[in-house]
């Protein structure tokens, strides 16, 4: 069974600062990493492969530095990486057009796995959008998957209900962070992954037409001003100061 996982490189948001003169977030120089939930997707792909056999292909779209992230996913257990070189900032239409172009070029697959959303944008658009483009069925927000040779059952976490869906192949599944605990690759696996293939495709290698549907015209930082009055101990005096301040702020009534 061929499994395709779509993964994304994101910036480390906890390091992000806002430039106070321009009120814009400073994005350059931030550490980059694999989107957390995409690792859950890889982990789930490995579990399915362990059970049914097959091959795991990871597709990432982005700048050349994405290759470093790809190596991490190959070390976890993916068999092959495909890096689609991105021609700059993409909207969701362009991004999913490239992904679907790459998927069509791969051709044979049963399951496409994606994280439910990325930690930077948190739209959750890529998975179901891709399913729509490829016109295949979708199981989103899966907190549990049970795949056999012929079909897959997924539990969708919808907040107040859990809906269980059964689907034949091909199917696109987006997973939540709760579905599993992604493995940490061993040193041996990291070394072995160096010999796994990473194919680099450009837009011209794919049979696609890119059209921007949504243009980002501005990005404004939101600063959070807090008093940051921290008491270094939990003495009665500190507690009393805190209570007095809360009373002054009008939240005790």
């Amino acid at each position, binding site marked *: 069974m061929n499994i395709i996982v779509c993964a994304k490189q994101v*910036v480390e*948001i906890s390091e*992000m600062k*806002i430039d106070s003169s321009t009120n814009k*977030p400073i994005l350059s120089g931030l550490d980059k990493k694999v989107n957390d939930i995409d690792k859950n997707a890889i982990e789930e792909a490995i579990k399915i492969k362990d059970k049914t056999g097959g091959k795991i292909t990871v597709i990432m779209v982005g700048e050349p530095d994405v290759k470093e992230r790809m190596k991490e996913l190959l070390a976890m257990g993916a068999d092959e990486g495909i890096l689609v070189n991105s021609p700059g900032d993409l909207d*969701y*239409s362009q991004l999913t057009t490239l992904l679907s172009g790459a998927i069509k070029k791969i051709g044979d697959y049963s399951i496409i796995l994606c994280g*439910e*959303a990325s*930690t*930077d944008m*948190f*739209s*959750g*658009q890529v*998975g*179901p*959008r891709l399913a*729509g*483009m490829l016109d295949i*069925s*979708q199981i989103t*927000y899966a907190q549990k998957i049970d795949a056999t040779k012929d079909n897959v059952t997924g539990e969708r976490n*919808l*907040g*107040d*209900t*859990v*809906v*269980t*869906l*059964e*689907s*034949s192949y091909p*199917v696109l599944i987006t997973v*939540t962070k709760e579905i599993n605990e992604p493995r940490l690759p061993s040193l041996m696996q990291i070394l072995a992954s160096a010999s796994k293939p990473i194919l680099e495709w450009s837009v011209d290698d794919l049979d696609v037409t890119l059209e921007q*549907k*949504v*243009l980002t*015209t501005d*990005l*404004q*930082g*939101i600063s959070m001003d*807090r*008093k*940051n009055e*921290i*008491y270094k101990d*939990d003495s009665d005096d500190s*507690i009393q100061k*805190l*209570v*007095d*301040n*809360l009373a002054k*702020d009008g*939240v*005790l*009534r």
Partner: protein
Amino acid sequence: MVLVYSDNKKLAFELLSKAAEISKETKNEVIAAIIGKNDETYAKELVSYGADKVYIAENESETTKAEEYCEILENIITETKSEIILIGSNKNGKEIASRLAGKLNAGCVIDATDVSLDAGKVTVKRVVYSGNAISVQQFQTTPAIITVPSKVFDPIDADSSRKGKIEKKAISPKKSTSTITNISEKVTGDVNVEEAEIIVSCGRGFKDKSDIKLADELATALKGKTVGCSRPIAADLKWLPEDHWIGLSGHKVKPKLYVAAGISGQIQHIAGMRDSSVVVAINKDADALIFNSADYGIVGDLYSVLPKLTKAIKEKMG
């Protein structure tokens, strides 16, 4: 035309007010869709909240999948030549909107916090980077598909004398290749953290499920009954149902007072509570990230701080 759809009635009414505002500018009609039961009472309600026309696509909603919802909406969009599609941003709404965008090769923005027309172009805002920035985005093409969370727009006052057309549509979408085999209700409490004015939240600093009573006692002393929590407590340990979970993939809250006890302050948690008016953090680690997002903080063990604070609050409030 502007098309409105949500499986959540309240959210549909909220979207109608924005749809009516846009339609006034473009001199178009507001269309609302009902997918599921043939509910004429609800259709009339949609009219009273601003819909000029309501399409009822009757089908067995219990077993309808995203693929089928999309095909029904595609039909309605084509027939009505809708250029702006507003969909309620719950989990169903988001997956339907995204799939629809893929099918129609249309622009789509999820979780918009503002929708307007700027020189004829649909312009939206959405929060990105875990609440650190707002992105302004402009649609270059139509249709423009937008999902909007609840409480972003206020509904207009319902006017039962408003006139509108109600039309039944027989649309039988191609059956999805998937089947719903089970639907189970999750165990939930009667808590609604999104409406709460005072929240005491617990994190990994709690060592046992029964210790959550310490947070509960403080919440009661503060005359708020609401206990919240971070991801590990709800998702991993399952000590509290998920309706208590505050964070990026949990609930977003905006209480007057938010007390974070034993919560480290991961960016995903901050994204859920950053709109709180006053934030108090209690953590024994002086370097915990949560202190950066707090108005007041106490560096100390929650097992000693919480009882002391509860007592002091009770004394203060009499």
